[in-house]
């Protein structure tokens, strides 16, 4: 039985709505559906909705990754010829160092809570950052992003001196350790 010869039912049309909207059906079937749509407003509405849905979804933008993502990956993976190819500690070591840095910030923040006289704006900001990281650590969910941001925060905000002071330490190689992400040599303050 040809679909074009017999009137189609709503169920038959419903089964073919996507293919009809996509233009994937044979001409005889298309004619049968069109005849049904002329007399069935319910199915006609379904077809119109399917077409609108398809058109909206197909017009959604394709998204480009953030600029610099590829360079970041090249650097992180130590790909030869990358602008900042990392030498020295391997990725696993650097990850542990980043976690250690996050915990160091957390411990420094905890110490600052007990040192009321150090409640400067800088200490408050550090404590807030430490609490966030402590919460992340409690959830066992220190992500790669958190590690990275912790490392960046230590470098960008020059937090190492603050952390060192909290431990009663003086720093000798802050700049080198901040740049490499490796712990620098530190000495206990004599004062």
């Amino acid at each position, binding site marked *: 039985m040809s679909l074009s010869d017999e009137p189609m039912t709503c169920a038959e049309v419903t089964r073919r709505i996507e293919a009809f909207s996509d233009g994937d059906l044979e001409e005889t079937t298309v004619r049968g559906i069109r005849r049904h749509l002329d007399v069935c407003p319910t199915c006609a509405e379904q077809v119109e909705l399917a077409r609108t*849905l398809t058109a909206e*979804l197909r017009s959604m*933008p394709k998204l*480009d*990754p953030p600029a610099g993502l*590829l360079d970041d*990956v090249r650097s*992180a993976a130590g*790909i030869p010829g990358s602008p900042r190819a990392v030498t020295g500690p391997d990725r696993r070591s650097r990850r542990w160092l980043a976690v250690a840095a996050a915990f160091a910030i957390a411990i420094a923040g905890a110490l600052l809570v007990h040192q009321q006289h150090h409640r400067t704006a800088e200490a408050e900001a550090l404590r807030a950052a430490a609490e966030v990281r402590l919460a992340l650590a409690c959830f066992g969910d220190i992500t790669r992003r958190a590690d990275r941001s912790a490392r960046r925060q230590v470098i960008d905000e020059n937090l190492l001196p603050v952390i060192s002071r909290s431990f009663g330490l003086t720093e000798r190689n802050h700049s080198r350790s901040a740049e490499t992400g490796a712990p620098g040599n530190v000495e206990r303050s004599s004062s």
Partner: protein
Amino acid sequence: MERAAFDSAAERHARKFYTFASYLLGDPHEAEDVAQEVLVKLWTRGGGIPTDRLEAWLMRVTRNACTDCLRKRKRTAEVISIQRDDRPRADRPSPEPSPERMAAGSELGARILGEMERLSTAARSVVILREIQGFSYVEIAEIMNMSLDTVRVTLHRARRRLRESLKEVRSHVALG
């Protein structure tokens, strides 16, 4: 993998897997993390993949990374929900529109993306791959590790559900 081959593959395919991750996760930061993970895997393991299968391999790696990300998100949300909210994050509407929703061509498009978040991860993935990115049924079956019939049925059900949602949205707009 050679540096030149890596650069070429990354530049050719990054847009596809980043688009997929962005729409599936609805979070640009998580999508960026997934994209980084995929690129690192391309560098470390992509050397042995034939060029004509590289796109499907990358999309499959992306799908797996997104699935892991959604699982991790759900676990975190369950812990947080004990203190704050009974509903897991995946079921809650985002507090602010994600970039891809803002980039949607129309308010209707943004609403459709919102409705897509109610679909299962598999159904949402198939809709994104087919309707937004234009992959064929065969390609989707390979990326999703599904049979062709499963792809067809999943897509059919997802579209029907989205049509129903679209009809509701329209009736609300008409009433409002």
